[in-house]
């Protein structure tokens, strides 16, 4: 498989376009002939990350790197940061706003779900400065 690099800007102010980056990645992976199972894992992880970047990170970017053996997705935002990462990783923990909840999010399931569907999940965050979330999924 050729090395592919993709960059997506994620708008933090428009809920209606959230998911466009994930939708595009899913199409690209399909075109590259990636297996259905891997596409499912990648699509879910990417979408959870994209939604988090919108609803918690106030927008940011996603960078995707596809190589022969793995897919690396990196979300970067300059939002409020995460105070306690291990707490954020717990199922059910959420600080989502009412607006996000009205759209059907805020169950505190996103990060645990990303962990479940990826082969590695690395989060680094500085309060008041922002958050970086890296997801690695093996392709083989």
């Amino acid at each position, binding site marked *: 498989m050729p090395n592919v690099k993709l960059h997506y800007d994620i708008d933090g102010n428009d809920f*209606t376009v959230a998911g466009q980056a994930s939708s595009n990645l899913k199409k690209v992976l399909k075109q590259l002939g990636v297996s259905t199972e891997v596409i499912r894992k990648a699509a879910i992880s990417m979408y959870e990350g994209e939604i988090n970047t919108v609803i918690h990170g106030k927008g940011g970017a996603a960078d995707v790197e596809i190589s022969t053996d793995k897919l690396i997705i990196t979300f970067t935002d300059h939002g409020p940061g995460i105070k306690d990462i291990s707490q954020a990783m717990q199922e059910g923990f959420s600080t989502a706003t009412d607006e996000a909840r009205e759209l059907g999010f805020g169950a505190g399931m996103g990060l645990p*779900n990303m962990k479940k569907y990826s082969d590695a999940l690395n989060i680094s965050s500085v309060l008041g400065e922002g958050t970086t979330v890296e997801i690695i999924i093996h392709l083989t």
Partner: protein
Amino acid sequence: MKLQELQTILHATFVTGPDGWEETEVKAACGSDLMSDVLAFVKDQGILLTGLVNPQVIRTAEMMDIKVIVFVRGKVPGEEVIELAKDLDMVILRTENPLYVACGKLYKEGLPGSREDI
């Protein structure tokens, strides 16, 4: 179950879908107003019944390879939602039934969910 039968059971209105949608065969369904839970728990159910009508419902379904969405409680999707569904060749139906009733009717007619062993 064929979508035609599902439409009859729910007295559902057709909103959008590719030609021949009535013949689509569905094997299992899920009902939820929480997209977080759909993303975390749904496994190969072909239909989502929901009372939410924002574009994230369509996006969530797209990620989960769900091709059929039934909007319950008489909810009317906006133009952008319908357009998005069209682009993705999804079927959208709507029914006046509330979520519980719509799911119950389909379940009674033999359309299963997941994790029924618990």
